Every structure is written in C-alpha cells, then in structure tokens.
C-alpha cells in the first residue's frame, strides 16, 4: 500500500538569520572577520611602507572605519573569550577566572604595544 506520508520540509533561504535577534548577532559576530581583513590589509600596506600610507590613515573616513574595526575587534574578543572556557570543561567559577584572565592578558599586551609605540 502506498504511504500516506508526505513530510513537509521547510527550506531555509539565504535570509534565514534576518528575523531572529540571536542569529543576527551571530552574523554580526561572524562579520567582524571583514574588519580583521581590513586591518590586516592596512598593516601590510604599512609594513610595505607604501607611499603616503600615513596621509591615508589620517583621512577622517579611514579613522571612522578604523574606529568601527576597533569596536568589531572588541566584540570579537568578547565572544571568543566567552567561548574559550567552554572548550575546557570547567566549573562556573573557573570559567569566570579564564575569561577574566584573557581580558587581563589582552589589556597587558595592548599596554605594552602602546608603550613601545609611543615611548
């Protein structure tokens, strides 16, 4: 006898993430990668000492983009640091310790870099 079943599959379209705050945030988090590419490109240009890189960097538009890139980096760091302890099977208290430690480390490294750069 022919089956009377006809399972209905709800296909996901390319906009699946648009209507849901959690998924939108996920896409933003993944989107931070674009800014990482941007900063990498800038760095490479800087290292190659391409002509006029400094004047380009002082362009207000570039400053604005870099500010956004900085925010993106912070967001990415936050999500990444929150994830890190999850990969380690720790207790809640240990989790907080790891996250705190990662932020402390980030701050310390940033300070050192700033000191070296401006000293």
């Amino acid at each position: 006898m022919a089956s009377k079943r006809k399972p209905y599959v709800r296909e996901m379209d390319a906009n699946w993430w648009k209507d849901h705050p959690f998924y939108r945030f996920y896409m933003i988090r993944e989107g931070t990668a674009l800014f990482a590419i941007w900063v990498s490109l800038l760095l490479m240009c800087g290292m190659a000492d391409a002509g006029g890189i400094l004047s380009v960097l002082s362009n207000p538009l570039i400053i604005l983009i870099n500010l956004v890139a900085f925010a993106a980096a912070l967001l990415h760091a936050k999500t990444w640091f929150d994830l890190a302890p999850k990969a380690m099977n720790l207790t809640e208290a240990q989790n907080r310790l790891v996250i705190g430690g990662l932020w402390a480390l980030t701050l310390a490294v940033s300070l050192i870099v700033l000191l070296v750069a401006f000293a």
Partner: protein
Amino acid sequence: MADMNKMSLRVMRYNPERDDAPRMQGYDVPWDPSTSFLDALSYIKDTLDPSLSFRSSCRMAICGSCGVMINGVPKLACKTFLRDYPEGAAVEAMANFPVERDLVVDLTHFLEYIQTLKPYILGNQRRPEEGPNSQTPEQLAAFRKFSMCINCGLCYAACPQFGLNSGFLGPAALTLAQRYNLDSRDFGKAERMPHINKEKGGVWACTFVGYCSEVCPKHVDPASALQQCKVESALDFAAAVLNCTKKKEAGHGKQT
C-alpha cells in the same frame, strides 16, 4: 473554566493527506497563570478540535516529547506558560525537522545520529560480580551536565547548521558522545572519534552559533560540549599526523 480569560493561539496544522503545505489555525483557549502550552494544546484537542496531533507524555519537562516553536523560539510546550505571552502566540512544529502532521515532526535522523556516536560504555570489561567501578564526585562532575540531555531535539530546531545540512550529527548526539568520552569508566573514545571528525556531518560543521545552549531546557550546554569535541578532534588530528609521519619514517626505514 467558564470565567477564565481566553487567549488567542495560532497553531500549525498540516494534514499530509489533504494539505500541500502547513497553515496556521486560530483557537481561543481559556487560561490562568498555571496554564502551560501543553495544557492549551490538550484543551484544543479535548474540546475544540480532536484532529490536532502533537506528542506529549510526562508534562513535567523530563521526557522530551513536546518540543515546539513558540513565536519562533524552540520550547517545551509543558514548561512554557501562557502567562508569559499576554499578546497570544504562534505554536509551530520544531524547525529544521520535516513536518509529518501538525506539530509532529520526523525525528529519524536525530535518533540515528545518537546511535552512530555509540553512546554507551565501551572497552570496560568489568562484570557485576566484581562490584561497581569507583568514580569520585569530581569524575562524575566532569560529564554530569552532559548526561542531563532529555533528547527533546530543541537544540536541533535552534541549529541553523542542522537546518542547512541535515547530515550534521548535531548538538545533542555529539554532546552525548562527549558525555561518554569524559566518563572515567569509558574507553571508547577511539571508536567515536572517526564520526566526530567526519568531514561533512562531524563536529566541524558546527560554527558555534551557540543558540542550542540558549534554548536547552535542561541547561546541558551542548555548545560547550561541541567546543570540547573540536578540541578532541584537533588533538586527534594532530596525533594522526604524528603517527602518520612516524609510520612513514618506519616504512621508509624498512625499504632501505
């Protein structure tokens, strides 16, 4: 019941013998602060529309039968209350699974994936006559959280990667694998790793959306289990590369 307030619910209906696609049907349901969505669905079936199909059993959030989408969010119907939706709500079948009938979805893949990952003690020959294994509370705590999964499937309904690729073993099945990998009594990791490592449906299909942990009604935190699986998988890969190099060297040695 008569003097109770009524709430408008929209419920997904799909009869494969009649409908081409699911549709939403409205029902007015009496409620008080203790009315769960499962109570509401039962009320609909008992008094308004006996043809509504849904799964349910324990009505106390431990059997995992009654997973549905409430306003687009994966929830257990028995542990979600009308009082929290004063504007009414839409109840749909769990996302990412094929709909068989109304709120009933096809869970075949999910069950298969659980079995694939061998969620049982392996490599321990101890017999009852020898008495129980020793396991300290700390050793128990290492996997306990991951043993709390009730197999409700909400994490699959929350996982876009499973939605996009139904071959993905998915949060609950992989969590169960990690639960046994972490159990001090188990020695079966080597048998589970090939499945966890698998290119298409293995743990690397997970992109850490993290919504699975958000919707888990038992706070199992499958996202965490999957991150741990990734670490294991990476180590496993590194070990395989090392082994491979060693073997090659050994093979090379033989030839010369």
